[in-house]
């Protein structure tokens, strides 16, 4: 029986794979990597691409990751997968969106205040009208 080691693939949202494997093949930023038992401790960033996991019996499984990190410890390989497509400009766009949202919220604040003031004025006018009507009724009766 071939030697095997433990492999874990996790993303921020879920644990994707965990089990004993013979080999892990992934796309690192400096080139493709094949990890066999006894590999030196290593840490690398991953490019978007498949992570291939080869089980004891030679069975193969493919997981697609959009990036992340690969960590090799003496007896454990872990893949910290990104769930989202990451790129500097995409991140920038997301940040811009959040900023716009905040601005909108703050602009709405002024709208809300205006609305509040308008509602108050309306209530006042209604109260005045009611008073006038009551006065009229009294005057009619008297």
């Amino acid at each position, binding site marked *: 029986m071939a030697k095997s080691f433990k492999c*874990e693939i*996790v*993303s*921020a*949202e*879920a*644990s994707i794979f965990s089990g004993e494997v013979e080999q892990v093949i992934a796309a*690192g*930023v*400096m080139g493709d990597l094949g990890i066999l038992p006894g590999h*030196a*401790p*290593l*840490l*690398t*960033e991953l490019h978007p691409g498949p992570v291939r996991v080869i089980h004891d019996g030679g069975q193969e499984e493919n997981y697609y990751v959009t990036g992340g*990190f690969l*960590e*090799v*410890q*003496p007896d454990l390989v*872990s893949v*910290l997968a*990104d*769930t*989202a*497509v*990451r790129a500097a400009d995409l*991140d*920038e*766009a*997301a*940040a*811009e*969106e*959040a*900023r716009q*949202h*905040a601005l*909108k*919220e*703050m602009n*709405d*604040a002024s709208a*809300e205040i205006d609305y509040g003031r308008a509602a108050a004025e309306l209530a006042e006018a209604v109260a005045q009208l009611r008073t006038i009507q009551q006065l009229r009724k009294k005057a009619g009766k008297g």
Partner: protein
Amino acid sequence: MAAAKEIRTQIGSIKNTQKITSAMEMVAASKMRRAQDRMKASQPYARQIRNVVGHIADANPEYRHDYMIERETKRVGFIVVSSDRGLCGGLNVNLFKAVLRDAKAWRDRGVELQFCALGAKASAFFRKYGGELVAARSGLGEAPEVQDLIGSVKIMLEAYDEGRIDRLYVVYNEFVNTMTQKPVVRQLLPLSTDMGNDKQDEEQTRPSTWDYLYEPDAKALLDSLLVRFIESQVYQSVVENAACEQAARMIAMKSATDNAGNLIDDLELVYNKARQAAITQEISEIVGGAAAV
């Protein structure tokens, strides 16, 4: 009999409300279970990434990242995680109280504040309360994704990088159990204090440390790892808060259903009394009439 009829319609409308609240209770109970699963599913990633960051910090004591350096506090950033919807008891109110308490403590020391609101309720809160809102995001739904949070987190991290804030906190509800949710204010940046402690403990217990081979190099890796680490922490807060929301809603709707039941019991008593009073009156009228003839 007019009063009796009014009471009957009132009972009817309360019964309708009760149907709605008990349905919401059951929906919240099933959603809570799923939210709890999501909460558990996000833990392995956070644990792994914390280990890796700890290892690098261990192996490269000479390189201190900005995120690990404590600096003088002039401005503080808060990421406030709330729910999108109401009808979940005092969940959000308690959270905002915790934020206000902390905000006041910082203001008294002359520290300026910046806020990032995650969730519609937090946005609405800052609209009323004022305060400098630099990022907002709502409509995360029941299954929040990391992708939805990247933008907001990036703004806060940029602010930290550029020295516009010197500390970053995340405020969310901690899921203690189904009955209890506790608002917590947790420090995200700088990492130094708690990471340092972890490291020392580990060093004492761990028999051997190792250094990695780095691709491309330790510094670049640590930079991007720390960003991911903060993102995963914020994501975990959001997921945990979502579980809290469902639990709080379940409890709130359960008590609303119980209260509606009590109200119906009371009203039925009043209704029966009114009905009997009317019958008694009719009988005495008939008897009185017969006596007069």
